[in-house]
């Protein structure tokens, strides 16, 4: 298609003067490359040659699968849905709220029972369902330079943030739909002592975001004081507090607030969980979360009825492979078995048909 204008020299119809050079032989060089005789490895896929590969895959995959499966099963995970869709559920009243900025905070508490003690560090997640954080226009609705502490972007948010770039002629910090829709429920966990007293479990608010995010990607605008630094900007429409009042700890406030950072990392799938708190193990003798009754206290702010969403709180221990997911283990086991089975089939094929075709039967 594009060769229409190719013009080799002698096709131009130009007169080529036969000079002394014409006596040189035009014989092509007899090199392996030009004659296409480079030494080559020519594998032929036949039953016999690939047999080992199948058995090896089978032999490797099955143990890996078992390992993954066992690991996944050892992970303890507990999930409680506090959306309050049911009339009977404690959060039903709160869930009727469609509004973001309802003046009266609505709280509800959900009791639950942990059947097993959680030994290691426990990760506390909030989970949202049917929340399309990966919607194209939502994903784009942010200004990374602003979040990186760029002063120009702070006062002049990028166009991508529209319509959440300015409010009442003041630039919004942080701008954009993602920030605007930040998850704002407060979750607190209480352990019901067998005695009946409620002991609040200490939740760590730091260490939940990526280190690189917290230290490189997100930066507060320069300024002696966050309040001063954010002078002239306004809070996102749905927020109750400005960004510099997210946390009392100056290391976890403003753009580098970890809850904020975690939210800003948009989820890939509409049902997702996000790390909310970490329950650190502080004593080797006592389980982090002993078996028993617990209560989840929720300050219910986040409306999900507009998209028929669900809110969950998840407690999970984690391993090297992350959270609980038996899928990969099962996949490895089944693929390994299939490969093993195929290996056997190929072996049979080899003995049935291989003999006639392996060597010289070309007349077949």
């Amino acid at each position, binding site marked *: 298609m594009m060769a229409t204008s190719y013009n080799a020299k002698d096709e131009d119809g130009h*007169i080529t003067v*036969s000079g002394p050079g014409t006596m040189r032989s035009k014989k092509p*060089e007899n090199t392996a490359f030009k004659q296409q005789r480079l030494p080559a490895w020519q*594998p032929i*896929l036949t*039953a016999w040659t690939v047999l080992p590969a199948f058995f090896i895959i089978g032999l490797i995959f099955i143990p890996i699968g078992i390992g993954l499966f066992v690991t996944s099963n050892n992970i303890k995970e507990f999930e409680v849905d506090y959306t309050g869709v049911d009339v009977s559920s404690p959060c039903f009243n709160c869930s009727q709220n469609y509004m973001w900025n309802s003046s009266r905070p609505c709280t509800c508490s959900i009791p639950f029972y942990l059947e097993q003690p959680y030994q290691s560090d426990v990760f506390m997640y909030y989970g949202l369902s049917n929340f399309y954080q990966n919607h194209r226009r939502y994903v784009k609705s942010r200004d990374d330079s602003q979040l990186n502490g760029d002063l120009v972007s702070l006062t002049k948010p990028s166009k991508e943030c529209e319509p959440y770039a300015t409010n009442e002629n003041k630039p919004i910090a942080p701008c954009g739909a993602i920030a605007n829709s930040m998850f704002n429920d407060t979750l607190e966990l209480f352990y019901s002592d067998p005695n009946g007293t409620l002991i609040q479990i200490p939740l760590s608010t730091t260490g939940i975001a990526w280190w690189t995010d917290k230290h490189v990607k997100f930066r507060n605008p320069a300024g002696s004081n966050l309040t001063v630094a954010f002078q002239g900007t306004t809070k996102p429409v749905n927020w109750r507090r400005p960004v510099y009042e997210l946390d009392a700890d100056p290391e976890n406030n403003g753009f580098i607030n970890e809850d904020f950072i975690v939210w800003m990392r948009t989820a*890939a799938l509409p049902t997702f969980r996000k790390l909310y708190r970490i329950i650190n193990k502080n004593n080797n003798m006592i389980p982090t979360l002993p078996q028993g009754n617990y209560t989840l206290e929720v300050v219910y702010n986040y409306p999900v009825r507009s998209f028929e969403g669900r809110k969950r709180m998840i407690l999970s221990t984690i391993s090297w492979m992350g*959270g609980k997911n038996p899928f990969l283990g099962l996949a490895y086991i089944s*693929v390994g078995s299939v490969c093993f089975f195929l290996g056997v089939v190929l072996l049979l094929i080899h003995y049935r048909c291989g003999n006639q075709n392996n060597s010289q039967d070309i007349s077949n």
Partner: protein
Amino acid sequence: MPWRSPLALLREALRGQRAREKDLRNLVSNLPYEGLEKGKQPNRYYSGNAIKTTKYTLLLFIPMNLFEQFHRLANIYFVGLAILNFVPVVNAFQPEVALIPIIVIMSLTALKHAWEDFRRYQSDKKLNHKPCSIYSRREKQFVERRWKDVRVGDFVKVVSNEIVPADLLLLYTSDPNGVCHIETSNLDGETNLKLRKAISGLCVPNPEYEPESFNCTVVCEKPNNNLNNFKCYAEKPDQEKVGAGIESLLLRGCTMRNTNHAVGFVVYAGHETKSMLNNNGPRYKRSKLERKLNTDVIFCVILLFVMCLVGAVGQFLWLKALPAVPPYLVPDSNGHLDSPSLSGFYMFFTMIILLQILIPISLYLSIELVKMGQIFFITNDVDLYDQETDSCVQCKSLNITEDLGQIEYIFSDKTGTLTENKMVFRRCSIMGTEYPHKENAIRLAVLEETETEDDIIFNQRPRPTKTGWSLESEDTQRHHGSSSRHKSKVAGNARSDVAFSSPLETEVIPDRMLLQQISGAERFSSSSSRETDPHLDFFLALAICNTVVVSMATAPRRRVSGVSSSSQTNNPLDTLSNWVKKTGSLRHIFTSWRQDHFNPPLKMEESGEVDGLQTCSLHAPSLCDNRPSATSDDLCFEAESPDEAALVNAAKAYGFTLLARTPNSVTVRLPSGEDLVFQVLDTLTFDSVRKRMSILVRHPITRECLLYTKGADYAIMELLGSPYAEHLTGNEKKTAAATQHHLDCYAKDGLRTLCFTKKVVSAKMYESWSVDRQRALAAIENREQLVMDSAVQLETNLSLLGATGIEDCLQDSVPETIVALREAGIQLWVLTGDKPETAVNIGYACRLLEEEDLVINISCNNKLTCTSILDSTLEEVRRYAADPRNVGTTQDISLVIDGRTLAMLLSSDLQDGFVELARRCRSVLCCRVTPLQKSHVVKVIREKLKVMTLAVGDGANDVNMIQAADIGIGISGQEGMQAVMASDFSMPRFKHLKKLLLVHGHWCYTRLANMIIYFFYKNVAYVNLLFWYQFYCGFSGTAMIDYWLMIFFNLFFTSVPPIMFGIMDKDLSAEMLLGVPELYRSGQGAGVYRFSTFWVSILDAFYQSLVCFFIPYLAYRDSDIDLFTFGTPLNTISLFIILLHLSIEIKSWTLVHWLIMLGSVALFFVVTVAYSGLCVTCNPPSNPYWIIQRQMVDPMFYLICIITTVVALLPRYMFHVLRNSIAPSPLQQARHVDRLDPGTREQLMKEWRNLRGSGPVKRSRLSTPPSPTLDTHADIYPVSPIASDIMGDESTLNVITGNHHHT
């Protein structure tokens, strides 16, 4: 320059336009107007000599190139997408980023165009600045100017070895006879010298030409591109007109030879010259594969449409299902949200942008690159190099390489294509007596043998005695042993500067009987010069009746050697030593001569002439004194056709040596040593209608006007007058009958025949005829017809002298090539202008026809017969094929048709029957076909049977056929370059067709087909990932992969491996493909690239993308995975899948493969790591910062990558394994054989060939005549005598089976 009104300018321009458009142009000399302003110049309307072949100018390059590129649909699609991206509601990526692919592709293309244009510019500049001399009135002499300064109406002087700068009407030459020689090899590749005559009667042959005396008006036709035709006349002030034709025109680009200088009047300049008008740039053909590919691209468009529709409807439904406005729906800047239907509508376009690479735009660029690589390898194949002509295969059409692998029909010319086009005089018949020339036959046999064994002969040869040649130095002698063969070939090469003059062609050993006859006749004729013996006349006719130009072997045409002008000096020793330097060493010539000495002892007893012929060359130095009366032995005959050279050489062998030819005289030396100078009165040149040429001479002694005519037997025999006429004596009748008998015998032996006649023209008759002739020559209207009529007028009542038989040797390994091509499932047709007998014979010799074949010969004279014969034959052939007894043992059917019958069969009503019959025949031989019929046959077969056709030929008569076929191949042989220039590929020998088709054709086709299939697969597999993701992002058009990485993925990470695959993959070795030609069949018809293959690969792509998306999806479901962290493993996995998929398809892994594959993976990781490591906020709003780094330390990443890749590729892998194990295709079996060691492989290949039929081993001869109705030696189609009576013409249809006699 005075100011002129725009109106005047416009009028001037219009007038110029009209002047250029006029059918006749009036040109006058520029000299009287020299120095005047442009508006006063009489020839100002005609284009100047400066040429410009560039397409662009420096300033306008960008707009013009853009304009050119936007002519392509694909680019428009691209730009449309880019523009779509700037529409805010539909854009999927940042608009600027979306421009990158189109910009990259278009700038690459523009770069290529610019480079080509620059090269054109450079060569234009070089040409325009060449020096030439133009006459200047002011300086009263020729002054040096540049080519670009030449204008129409100028006088240009061309000296020897200079290139003619424009089309010149020759006015004057330094030769006293007003002739000059030109070499047209730059134009048409013909190396023989052509004679040009100065236009007569315009100038007195002064020692120096005075251009100022030129006062005529030259009237010539409008420029056209016909190199062989030119009409003009010069009108003198006294109204006298002098006609001139192509014989007085020096074409731009020709080289002046053998003439000191010449002066010409410029009639056409620059772009109006014939050579420039003939230059139509490269050809563009679309290959079959590409046509199929385009339909598949349309399927891709449909697929894209469907997928976008799914996205649009999905978006609509998704929005509909939402109970309220969720926080993740972002309104536009006014806070307004589109309705679901409008969003769905917008989404359709967003999805087009998102999934755009489903249409494989870069495929076109990749195909082009692949083809360039394939052409590189084809042209560099050392097996396709011919040492004798020092030439390789050339690819003129750059985009049909893969068609070479799909050929089903080959149409071949015979002469020069299957045969050498080296004519060897074999036998002659004079006055009804046959002279078989047995000794000559033996010589030829021996010569052929020695040619194959000359190494041995060389080494056994005693050290040559030192000759008187001083240039032969000792050291060249020392190492001749090993390289001798090569050197002798080179020597042959040097000699073949002169066409048709290899020793094979030049030497003839006379028949002893005939020699005696001649010497007797000579004695007799010297006593009574009145009655000349017909034998002497015969040889005179041989020597005279031709257009052969004589030059001296020791002082050959001086060639331009760069800038050195030493060759122009007149010192013969100088020229000689130049020439020796050029050819390497003269020793080679000695050795080639000496070889002959060595050959047969029979030569020793031969007559003096022959001995002299060989010995005298050893005294080469003594010949340096350029006297024309030097010994006759080093004369070189430069002929336009090889037959003529052969005949002149034959005459020389009998002592009738052509010494010189000028337009007005021919000098012949008789055996007695006497030189006769015949005055040439006229030459009636050969044309394809008359099929004969004549020369009218005045005998120097008897002063008789003699007309010698030679021509094809059927063109001559009927001019002998009716054999039953009364004036024809019984003797003459007998002679004619005997000669005809001999001619038939010659033809059966596969010799080319020519008849020679003589006629004594009375003086009175000549007078009246020549008046007619002059009138015909001066005519401008209808000249060809008039000239031909005048020729026919004279060529009557000829008396037969005799006939000659000339052999055209088959080229090297033609039979093997034909057998191999046939085994490859290719039907071969030979279309020749020869007689049926000759053609059939050659057919057997080259194994086009096999001895056991059933040969059907159809020949009829009128259409009715033709119809009935065709019907009955077809019926019979069908019955024969349907007969169950014939299955497996069927004899192959071959068809022989003559031109007249063919013309009838090709008429529209018989076409279908003919095609049907031809389809059932294994080979078809058409005789006596005209060039137009050749192309007609090709067209009919191509269109009716929908097959891939290839035409191969070497001469101008094959050009039509070459252009009509899917692939045209020109043999760069001895008959000029017209065929080569019209062809798509040119190659030196017919045998190269075998490797070109069987190996390169197969390779190119499988490579490209697989590459294209893979390309479709690759794009679909990758794009579908995005499509599946839409189901999880509310059909909002989100990409989970950073757009830069997506672009890089297609542009860098996965673009080189398929191109390498298309250029370098090698499924089978060349040896295997040549050894088992049957393997070629895999490419014929639908071939590898079928409709089903396309869909299978699309389905596979869908499967793989599903796996590639859903395994990570399930693994990461309900976790805290974020958008790009999810996309990164997907991107990595698809890279692995796509590359490993290719690895399964790659048949042979060389170092290059490994490097590119591993390099692609490495590049991916390096680029991705660097990009996501360095880019913190550089590409808002998408931000891949530190994502791959985190993934790469996560074991899950690797575990997911591994299992996904395995699951995705398992089916394809299994499919290959099972196919290879259970039902291997012939190609697969061949691959198995290919891996064995050479010895076993050889044996297996042989077995294979034998098993699969028509191999070299003849099938059992015991097979009974298969059909009872097909009895051998019987006319199986009893055309009822009544019927033939009614039709009143003879119709022959005979089936020749069994052993055909041939020698």
